[in-house]
């Protein structure tokens, strides 16, 4: 299942961060969701990526991220995936609202980033169109908001109805990590991805391991067996 965006990465042009933005979007759009990892070694890769994510996040917000992150892999089918989705939906701890969004917000504020700033940096486009194929922002009057990052599953990649809701929930939540990843680079105003804590997360999804944060210091990496 491919989750495409309505953006052509090759046509994104935001100055110095352009190469990294294109890489993030291309990595995301290449993900084949809900299939087993392509290689058995991806489990150790995913574990390393999670450690990278935590170290980079902790460098930005030492108090919000643990000194030691515990990760464990869980392999299974849709039943196990559903159980993990339900667990994180109902537990008290919310990874995205409790850790990831505050991290992104603090970073963007510290760098003075705004959608308006990125719109000003974008390459000129046809004024007759509301946006171009590489535009990540859209202006309505004096309001500038994100566009193009509303994930869509490719035609023909429909999942059975009982799985579709879960899959959509997970991918839409995960896509916000992709947005934060792009925003981080736009705020950094360069193409060096080495400090971006969200890029290892995007790479983790691409490796076929789906993180579920059970508490502030424990993440389960789920992978499909078939």
């Amino acid at each position, binding site marked *: 299942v491919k989750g495409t965006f309505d953006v052509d990465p090759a046509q994104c042009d935001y100055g110095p961060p352009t190469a990294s933005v294109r890489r993030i979007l291309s990595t995301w759009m290449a993900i084949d969701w809900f299939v087993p990892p392509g290689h058995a070694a991806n489990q150790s890769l995913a574990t390393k990526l999670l450690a990278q994510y935590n170290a980079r996040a902790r460098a930005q917000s030492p108090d919000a991220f643990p000194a030691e992150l515990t990760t464990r892999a869980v392999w299974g089918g849709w039943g196990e995936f559903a159980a993990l989705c339900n667990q994180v939906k109902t537990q008290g701890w919310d990874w995205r609202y409790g850790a990831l969004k505050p991290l992104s917000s603090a970073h963007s504020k510290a760098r003075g980033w705004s959608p308006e700033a990125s719109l000003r940096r974008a390459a000129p486009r046809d004024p*007759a169109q509301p946006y171009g194929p590489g535009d990540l922002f859209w202006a*309505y009057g004096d*309001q500038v*908001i994100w566009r193009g990052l*509303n994930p869509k599953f490719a035609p023909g990649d429909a999942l059975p109805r009982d799985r579709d809701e879960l899959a959509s929930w997970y991918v*839409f939540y995960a896509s916000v990590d992709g*947005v934060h990843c792009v*925003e981080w680079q736009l705020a950094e105003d360069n193409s060096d991805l080495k400090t971006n804590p969200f890029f290892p997360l995007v790479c983790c999804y691409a490796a076929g391991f789906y993180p579920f944060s059970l508490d502030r210091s424990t993440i389960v990496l789920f992978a499909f067996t078939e």
Partner: protein
Amino acid sequence: MPTASALRPPPARSSSPAGPRASGAPGRPERLVPIAFSARDRLIIALTRRKLGGAAPAFDEALRALREAVEEVIPAGRVYLLGAAECGPIVGSLVSSVAIVDGEGGVALVRVGRDGQTTALGRLAP
């Protein structure tokens, strides 16, 4: 890509033109269907309505109020262009898919399905 005209801001105006309205007590926010909204959605809608001060807003005013409310309620809260309807853009949450869209009866709340179809959830303001 949605048509350029659907996503183009209208000429400046201070409020929505008069037009047919959905049912509901005039002058008071429509009650939300509880099952359609998360607690976070309800908080954001309530704050958006407070910012609008009970007036029937033009879409650009509703968009500004919604964006401010999302940014106040959620750290790194963002609104997204989710699509376009006949009357204009559909703007809302990537996660909950609750959005606003302009309509003949004023700015409406909708849920956007994965197929891009919208389900009406009520009016944003009276």
